[in-house]
């Protein structure tokens, strides 16, 4: 297959070429296993093409405006957090640990001493790859294959730093762990998130990414791996609030073990274009996952989500709900799949996607899918897309609401079903406030 016109301009031997990779290896103090992994991924990066626009996962994407040569990986150490970078998930939250990064490099770490004494690790992934080498080696890129696509390969080869959270057996981390990624205007974030919960462990992780202002540009190419052993309980919140000039590429994976529970809440407000591949694998009997998604787009934002709920073992439950509200000329794409492997009997899978369009020019593509290879399963899916009902607006107006108050209320109500599922009150409030800020005035 030849490289298409849509993506040939992505290539940049200047900023993401061999010299950059060599310099990165030279600068870094990585254990040998990691250097070897990076080199393998780099070979993959060099041997495969950018995604083909005819590929089902990419055919509704838009990479034409992306010029990799305008960006360069952050190899030269850390900088200060850019002034004005908002932090939204901390309000009213008492945290047990926190990590902050700038341009994909961790600049501050803190962890409750009591937890550290119990063996909990929360720290820079680069540092932990050295200090907890065996642990990181075992899990890093165990769920994400660098061959997934060229962005995954690039990230696996050149990831700059990231966040490592490790909770040992039967340790419950009561207070949330807060992770914040800041990216300065025009910069690059190649960070990686690796979270491991041993059997019986419990944690809540609040992750957010933001830019110093709403118009900021940037490139994020990242990975998230959540690994849960038996009887563990993870609540993971991811608020993507990059500036509206950012490109966001991410592979996000979870592996949920026996009788474990995962509640994964995604909120996407920022970025000019985002392509997220989110997969939850239920790998042992009794695993349960709940995925919640809130997307709120405006202007010409274009967010693409390919999601997979993969039932690999019997008696697992997956519950999935994404809701988008679209303004202006923005576009969202959701392509979801429930896959049931052979032998995964008694699967209970659910997926739903609802889209509310606030303008005629907005567009939401919603493509649910099932692939079932077992015969005793229950899988249901649904999707709706539509404009705000004028009758609802009139009803509210007839009770004294202005038109824009009515629309704001209807939007809030539309998301309420998701908020009702989010068990962390401060997260509900922070997301509610973020949404309220984004609703335009309507005439």
């Amino acid at each position, binding site marked *: 297959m030849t490289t298409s016109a849509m993506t040939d301009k992505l290539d940049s031997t200047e900023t993401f070429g061999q010299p950059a990779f060599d310099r990165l290896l030279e600068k870094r103090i990585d254990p040998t296993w990691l250097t070897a992994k990076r080199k393998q991924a780099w070979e993959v990066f060099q041997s495969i093409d950018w995604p083909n626009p005819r590929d089902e996962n990419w055919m509704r994407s838009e990479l034409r405006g992306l010029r990799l040569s305008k960006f360069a990986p952050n190899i030269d150490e850390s900088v200060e957090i850019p002034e004005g970078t908002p932090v939204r998930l901390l309000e009213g939250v008492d945290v047990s640990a926190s990590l902050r990064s700038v341009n994909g490099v961790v600049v501050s770490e803190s962890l409750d001493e009591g937890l550290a004494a119990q063996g909990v690790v929360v720290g820079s992934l680069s540092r932990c790859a050295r200090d907890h080498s065996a642990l990181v080696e075992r899990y890093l890129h165990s769920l994400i294959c660098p061959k997934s696509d060229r962005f995954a390969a690039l990230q696996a080869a050149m990831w700059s730093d990231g966040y490592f959270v490790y909770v040992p057996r039967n340790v419950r981390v009561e207070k949330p762990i807060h992770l914040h990624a800041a990216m300065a205007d025009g910069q690059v974030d190649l960070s990686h998130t690796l979270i491991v919960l041993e059997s019986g462990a419990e944690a809540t992780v609040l992750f957010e990414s933001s830019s110093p202002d709403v118009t900021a540009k940037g490139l994020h190419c990242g990975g998230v791996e959540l690994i849960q052993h038996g009887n563990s309980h993870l609540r993971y919140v991811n608020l993507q609030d990059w500036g509206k000039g950012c490109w966001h590429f991410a592979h996000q994976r979870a592996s949920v073990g026996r009788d474990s529970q995962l509640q994964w809440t995604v909120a996407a407000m920022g970025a000019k274009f985002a392509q997220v591949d989110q997969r939850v694998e239920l790998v042992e009997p009794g695993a349960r996952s709940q995925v919640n998604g809130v997307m709120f787009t405006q202007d010409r934002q274009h967010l693409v989500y390919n999601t997979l709920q993969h039932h690999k073992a019997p008696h697992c439950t997956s519950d999935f709900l994404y809701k988008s509200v679209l303004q202006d000329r923005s576009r969202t794409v959701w392509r979801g799949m429930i896959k049931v492997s052979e032998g995964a009997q008694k699967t209970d899978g659910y997926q739903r996607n609802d889209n509310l369009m606030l303008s005629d020019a907005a567009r939401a593509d919603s493509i649910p899918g099932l692939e079932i290879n077992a015969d005793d399963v229950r899988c249901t899916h649904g999707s709706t897309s539509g404009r705000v*009902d*004028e*009758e*609802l607006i*009139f*009803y*509210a*107006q*007839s*009770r*004294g*609401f*202005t*038109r*824009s*108050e*009515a629309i704001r*209320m*209807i939007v*809030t*109500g*539309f*998301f*309420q*079903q998701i908020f009702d599922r989010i068990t962390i009150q401060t997260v509900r409030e922070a997301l509610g406030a973020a949404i309220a800020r984004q609703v335009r005035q309507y005439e």
Partner: protein
Amino acid sequence: MSHILQIENLHVSVNDKPILRGVNLVIKFGETHALMGPNGSGKSTLGLAIAGHPNYQITQGSIKLDDANLTEMEADERSRAGVFMAFQRPVAIPGVKTADFLRHAATNVRRPDRKEGQDLIPMREFRKELKSKMEQLKIDPDFARRYVNDGFSGGEMKRAEILTMAMLSPKFAILDETDSGLDADAVRLASASIAEIGRDKMGLLIITHHDKLLEHNPPQFTHVMLGGRIVETGGAELARELHDQGYDRIRKSYPDAEAANQQMLAKEESLAV
């Protein structure tokens, strides 16, 4: 207090199809009026035109509340001016709790000059008021936490509309078939609720096919609509007559209006097909 709602020579079209053809009606504060008429005669259209539904275009005539010309106002401005309509089939707003909806509505209606983003009625104060209104109207306190009209039974919807009316204390209220679909007990409850709110504290226009609601809220005036016009006005006895004997006399007495009514019905049916 003296207020007056004046409707003069009102012509209303929906999708360029004329429905109301010159309605004249004056309602004074404290009066109860019944609006009756066969199907398709334009009763709900009149209510929706007063409330300001955007699909109901006023092509001629005027609606005034005291000195204010409602015809030039958006629905929310009319509501803030003191007009209320209890809908026949109120829509559901999923995800919005009834209490939150009413708090915002009551704030806007009581403070017509409130700008978007300004404070609402304090939560505690509002909750107390809502609770006492719900007790007065014998409404299950659970209502407040439920989403607006979402999954409500027909009876619950009507009661929620009456509760809304009680919270907004309008100057003029239009009740569009608030009794339809209710059993005798529910109608009695709805009627008693209207009496509780105080018929003397507003002007009421009760749109109905039946006389059940009117038994408990006897009108001073009864208007009969046919073919988009009010063809006859009388007292409470007219409502009783129509209930007992139907609209045959009216149809015969006003052949032009009857022809218009049949024509509108036919169009409605052809649209429905």
